[in-house]
């Protein structure tokens, strides 16, 4: 009986270590990516709002040519802006259109984050359940035999 229990415990532990924990890590990584995207778009929105507020028509920036070598660049007309809408497409927008698009985009990202959060929570719950099961399996033999393991 003991050996059987030990086997089960071993299996549970393996399951936790090999399936659940990597899944958890993976889900967290994906969610972080979405967070980054969200940040990018929120920054863009803020910049556009800034431009609108200050009625900036032309712009001077430093463009990174690569390896942190910059060159001055001038934007004569800031009315048109090209926004990345995914799948390699950039759409020409006016400011207001751009702002609308960005808000739509942000909503979508929010929903994605929500999904990932739920997934992460479920994985964590599963891990806890398995640990609890192992605890149960061990506590019963504990009464009969010498105390084996304490969580």
């Amino acid at each position, binding site marked *: 009986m003991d050996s059987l229990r030990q086997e089960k415990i071993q299996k549970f532990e393996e399951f936790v270590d090999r399936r659940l924990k990597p899944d958890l890590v993976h889900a967290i990584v994906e969610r972080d990516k979405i967070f980054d995207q969200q940040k990018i778009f929120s920054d863009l929105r803020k910049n556009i709002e800034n431009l609108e507020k200050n009625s900036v028509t032309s*712009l001077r920036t430093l463009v990174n040519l690569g390896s942190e070598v910059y*060159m001055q660049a001038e934007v004569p007309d800031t009315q048109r802006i090209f*926004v990345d809408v995914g799948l390699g497409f950039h759409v020409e927008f006016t400011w207001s259109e751009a702002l609308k698009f960005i808000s739509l985009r942000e909503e979508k990202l929010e929903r994605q984050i929500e999904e990932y959060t739920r997934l992460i929570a479920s994985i964590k719950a599963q891990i806890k359940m398995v640990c609890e099961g192992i605890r149960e399996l061990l506590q019963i033999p504990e009464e009969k035999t010498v105390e084996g393991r304490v969580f």
Partner: protein
Amino acid sequence: MGKSQVKGTVTSLSSMFPAEEVQKAAKMVEDKLSDKQNEMNQLKEFIANNTSLINLVQKLPDELHHDIMVPFGKAAFFPGRLIHTNEFLVLLGESYYTERTAKQTVEILKRRGKSLESKVNTLKAVMQDLKAEASFFDSTASEAAEGLVEIREYEEDNSTERASQSGSLELETPSVAEADNKMGASEDDEYARIMSRLEELEKEELAAEDNEENLEDEDEDANAVESDGNEDELIKAAEGDGDEDEWTKAAFHRKKDECYSYLDHGQRYSESQSRKQLQQFNGKEPIEEMSNKYKHQDLTNQFASTGLTEEPVTKGEISHGRIIQQDTKSLSPSINASAPFEKKSVQASKSEFDSSKAFTGSIVEHTQNLDKSSVGTNMTSLQSSGSQPSKPVSRFKMQRK
């Protein structure tokens, strides 16, 4: 030749280097290797980017303006132009920037490229080392799996010890490399080899006029004809010490093979010449003269033979056979009297055995790096122990008592 006096330990290589551990080590090295490979790839990418940037920087000043899409954050662009096409802002690190022209920027980038190249080279060297380590581990693992064994043998006679390693990790002579789990098998092989040599020696001995002279001739023959390792073997065989002879022979046989590079050919040649001279004198001079000649010859051979040590003949004997001395001196002008004497089987000199130079220590013999002095002293004891010009075996045995 009682083998009971030979102690030994047989250590399986797999116990010294457990197979799993070796595999683990091999895997670790492989992981490191792959890490370094990734770093290498990254560095190569940097170098490629650097070169392309150099090209770009060189082309930009060709125009006053360049129409480009100016990025605005990570997800948006503005149509715009590049202006001031000869002014570049370069990051030097630690938030320090500098404005440079195109030419100066190119120079900066070239210097960066050089440092990247040197990094790549060092990384390559590190990877080479790791690869060598990995191959070493692989070979060890395979050998441990095969069941190679490290054999250590000890002799207890005259409180001498000799450890012969038949490890797999070092270069081995064929005789040693063949040593498997069967220690007895290797012993038998060496035993047979030694016996055959003994027979040869006895034949040569009979052919000579005097027993003693023949023996010395044998020694001379051995020295002149073969390497000094064989010389040791012959002497040992002549002495007739059973176990010690066997092992010393085997050891010296191996020694001979491995230390062949140590042999000084010139000295050997001089030795052979002196031997010829000696043969001319056969039957004429007394043993002391022969021993004198040997002494001189041995001095020349002190570096040639791997560890032969000679008993110093008393000066009283030098007065005899001046002709021989002259001959030997002419043959071996390089005699260095201050160098450690080499000992050969000098029967007469045994009576004047200088106890102060008798071997009382232990002999440790390694297959590759022979301890010349210690082996030489071994030779000394074995040779000095035989004193009488009888059959090699009996003479040596008698002396040992």
